[in-house]
């Protein structure tokens, strides 16, 4: 069985985000970009499934500008067998991504798609669900545990929900999106980094896959949230009362 993992190149989780002065978006020039942490977890899960003998191949897919290849190479260095890069300029929204993934599924025919539950740049949490909808496949989102049963072609997915843990049984092929506690991704070791250099990355364009990237969404403005005013340490109750009366005017 083949597993397809979608990975996204995003601003590194630890970077302090700055909004561009023209308010069209977030500053990405000269800023460290890395693989979305949830995608890392998705890839790690796929690799573990393959290592346990339940899958034959892990294909990493990424969409966006040419630099996505760097993120794919990281995925290959972690252990993915092949990469697929769909080159597209401009912002790709979840529905477009889902449509592209659907076309790729028709080409690659995987038995399982694993994605991160959301990307840390847009926090959409939509792509996995939309892919499942477009393909009419069952979905297990926010997975914190995945167990595959090859003979019965089932996936047992434990989901983290507000009320606790929910266990689902999905018929394969299925879509799984990963949550934080699913696993701890491995580091890319030097020998694997070297091997990754020779692993193939196939290139597509959205046109080749018959997907129209024009979006129905348009970002009008991006602004920072209003700055919180600093707290003030007061020295006495009298001062507190005075401030509440005269400055905050609540008493």
């Amino acid at each position, binding site marked *: 069985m083949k597993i397809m993992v979608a990975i996204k190149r995003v601003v590194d989780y630890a970077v*302090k985000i700055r909004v561009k002065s023209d308010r069209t978006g977030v500053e990405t020039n000269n800023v*460290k970009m890395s*693989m979305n*942490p949830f995608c890392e977890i998705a890839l790690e899960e796929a690799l573990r499934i393959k290592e346990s003998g339940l899958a034959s191949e892990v294909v990493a897919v990424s969409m966006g500008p040419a630099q996505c290849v760097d993120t794919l190479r990281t995925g290959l260095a972690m252990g993915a067998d092949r990469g697929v890069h769909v080159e597209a300029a401009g912002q790709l929204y979840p529905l477009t991504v889902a449509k592209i993934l659907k076309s790729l599924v028709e080409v690659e025919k995987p038995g399982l798609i694993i994605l991160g539950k959301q990307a840390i740049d847009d926090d959409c949490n939509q792509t996995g669900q939309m892919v499942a909808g477009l393909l009419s496949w069952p979905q297990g989102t926010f997975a914190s545990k995945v167990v595959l049963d090859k003979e019965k072609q089932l996936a047992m997915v434990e989901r983290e929900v507000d009320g606790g843990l929910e266990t689902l049984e999905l018929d394969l092929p299925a879509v799984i999106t990963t949550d934080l506690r699913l696993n701890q991704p491995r580091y890319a070791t*030097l020998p694997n*980094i070297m091997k990754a250099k020779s692993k193939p990355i196939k290139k597509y364009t959205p046109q080749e896959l018959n997907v129209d990237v024009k979006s129905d969404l348009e970002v009008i403005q991006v602004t920072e949230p209003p700055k919180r005013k600093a707290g003030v340490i007061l020295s006495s109750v009298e001062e507190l009362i005075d401030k509440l009366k005269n400055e905050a005017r609540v008493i």
Partner: protein
Amino acid sequence: MIKLMDKWRITNHLLKHSSKLLFDRRLSANSHNSVFRSALECSESLVKRGFGNASTIRYRCFGSEATKFERNAAFSTLNSEDVSYFKELLGEKSVIQDEDVLLAANEDWMRKYRGSSKLLLQPRTTNEVSQILKYCNSRLLAVVPQGGNTGLVGGSVPVFDEVIINMGSMNNLITFDKGSGVLVCEAGCILENLVSFVDDHGFIMPLDLGAKGSCQIGGNVSTNAGGLRLVRYGSLHGNILGLEAVLANGDVIDMLGTLRKDNTGYDLKHLFIGSEGSLGIVTKVSIHTPPKLSSVNLAFLACKDYFSCQKLLREAKRKLGEILSAFEFLDNQSMDLVLTYLEGVRNPFSSSMHNFYVLIETTGSEESYDREKLEAFLLSSMEGGLISDGVIAQDINQASSFWRIREGIAEALMKAGAVYKYDLSLPVEKMYDLVEKMRQRLGETAKVIGYGHLGDGNLHLNISAPRYDDMVISVA
């Protein structure tokens, strides 16, 4: 700007007046068994020679407890008038006699040394520092300057009942020149806060150490702190452009230049850098900050022996050249300690059969170029047998977790029990011989670990024992 004659006058004044006060009075008559902090001893013999006195022979003994020496009776004891004076001078809030606060301030980070000070002062301006010292000088009250109290050798806490002058309230950022990257700030600024501040403007601090969350820049300067980036940015002697300090008698020396090059007069600030408070209290600092470069890569490598680590360093300096920004090493025993005592830390390698680990960091302006350079270097080192395994951090989180291993060793040692710390600068080839020799000598009684800034020839030799025991010292 200090003119030549002024600088000369001040130097003279310094050597004649304050040093005599500080040094002679701290010595008691029969002090040939005494333990001295190194700055004191060196400067003391210098002063004595300078004044034509016969230099006496002193020998040092290293111990876990300071060898008992007497409080010099020439120093006065604090009385209530003194406290009232300070309260009037600084205001009630800056004069602290609270027992809990004093308990913490009297003890160092290692919990090894404890003083018995009854008073902590928190001046907010240079003028207040000057007034405090003037008064203490006239009353012959001993003082100890204190910054973040993160020092590991007991230099930041009182020995007896010295008044603690804590610089933590002097934490203003005075100016920052975005063109030249020159930062002027007060001595009580916490290093991590300075790092965040200059980061917003696209610069970094030239020094980085594990204690950055609590240590203050004045303390860093006074101890000439090295840190993880010395191999790239050099020591504070090169990065500090100016200082303002207050001498023991309350005189303020303004050496706070902000020029990158200034050859007028004597460059007195260098005396203060590393003087550990023995010449005066640093109140303001002017420091040159390098621009922040966007591409940082970190590799965690495993080597089979110390000789490979050394060779790797030589190769790294040549092949990585200008992008090398840190080169640290730790031995297997250090890794074990960290994995045992710290939470949330994992070994980047699946097997634990490696003898040495090396952390190499590169900082440059072009991500793909630096990455290629690093990967090519690591590949050739691996093929040459210098490294047996390695991982490269793929994002900042992974990089932080690698650094946590190296920076967390001190913390892990604390949790393991008693620690005898030695911060040594040695020729690189000889560095690990010392660790192995100590290991032989101590056998089962204690664990000896070695780690440190291999790039600068600086070894942190640490002996970890279940508890402090003079027997360990006698063997060592």
